């Protein structure tokens, strides 16, 4: 499984969204890497891509609201990282809509998304939890 419990921040809403995001990315990767032909993969790819476009925006928004609520000092920087990723996702899906036989584009997207997501949740998002814990506002107690 892609998700690891050590990624938990101790903020139930955000943790639930992260788990959902990992689950969807995982099924996206499974579809992307399955041994079937590209044509057969397209419906599943379209479905997860559509979901992720909406969900990533929604999740980033909720996470940013949480950061604001605890006066997280890294908010601006973190929001920039989110915005850059949203722009990348939107840019890739725009290119893909023009030509859904563009398998290399989707393979590149999958690889980058995997590494980006793991680093973001294992490193960047942990800083929010560390701050919350220090301030005694929330976060996990490990």
């Amino acid at each position, binding site marked *: 499984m*892609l998700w690891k419990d050590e990624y938990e921040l101790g903020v139930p809403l955000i943790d639930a969204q992260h788990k959902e995001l990992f689950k969807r990315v995982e099924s996206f990767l499974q579809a992307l*890497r399955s041994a079937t032909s590209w044509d057969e993969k397209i419906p599943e790819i379209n479905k997860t891509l559509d979901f992720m476009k909406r969900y990533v925006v929604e999740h980033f928004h909720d996470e940013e609201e949480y950061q604001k609520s605890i006066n997280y000092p890294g908010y601006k920087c973190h929001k920039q990282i989110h915005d850059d990723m949203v722009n990348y996702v939107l840019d890739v899906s725009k290119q893909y809509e023009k030509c859904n036989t563009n398998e290399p584009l989707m393979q590149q997207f999958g*690889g*980058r998304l*995997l*590494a*980006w997501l793991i680093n973001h949740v294992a490193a960047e998002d942990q800083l929010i939890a560390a701050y919350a814990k220090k301030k005694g506002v929330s976060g996990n107690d490990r």
Partner: protein
Amino acid sequence: MIDNLYKTFIDATRNVFNLMLHLSEISDHPGEDFKSDEGVDIAVSIVGDLEGEVIYRFPVSTSLNMVKIMSGMEFEAVDDFVTSAISEIANIISGNVLTELSASDLKCDRLPPVQRKPGEDPNKDKEYELKTSCHINTSIGEIGLEIRLNRI
């Protein structure tokens, strides 16, 4: 300065490998003779107070192992997916290095990572004030790192 840069890159690599790949046993030694096979060479250009490039060389087996750890899936060849995932890791390490350098008042930016074919090295003979290279050893394979920068 060069020693400091070297250490900053090694520390950043160690941290990223630790967090993302759960690799803790990482050692390094200086050396220019890194043998790159048909793996992934990624160049990250740096602009700002320091200018130049950093090249990460990931041999085939190291690359495949890294992506396997991240995804839990098997990979047989270095394809678009693998190259892109590895490029993002080089991008993340470089970003962390620049954040670290900004704390000592060096303001730099990086350009998106570019894949180079092994052996393709357009800047090989350029002069750099700060130049060093090393081998990084991990339990899933070696990585070559080459730092070439000028103070602006």
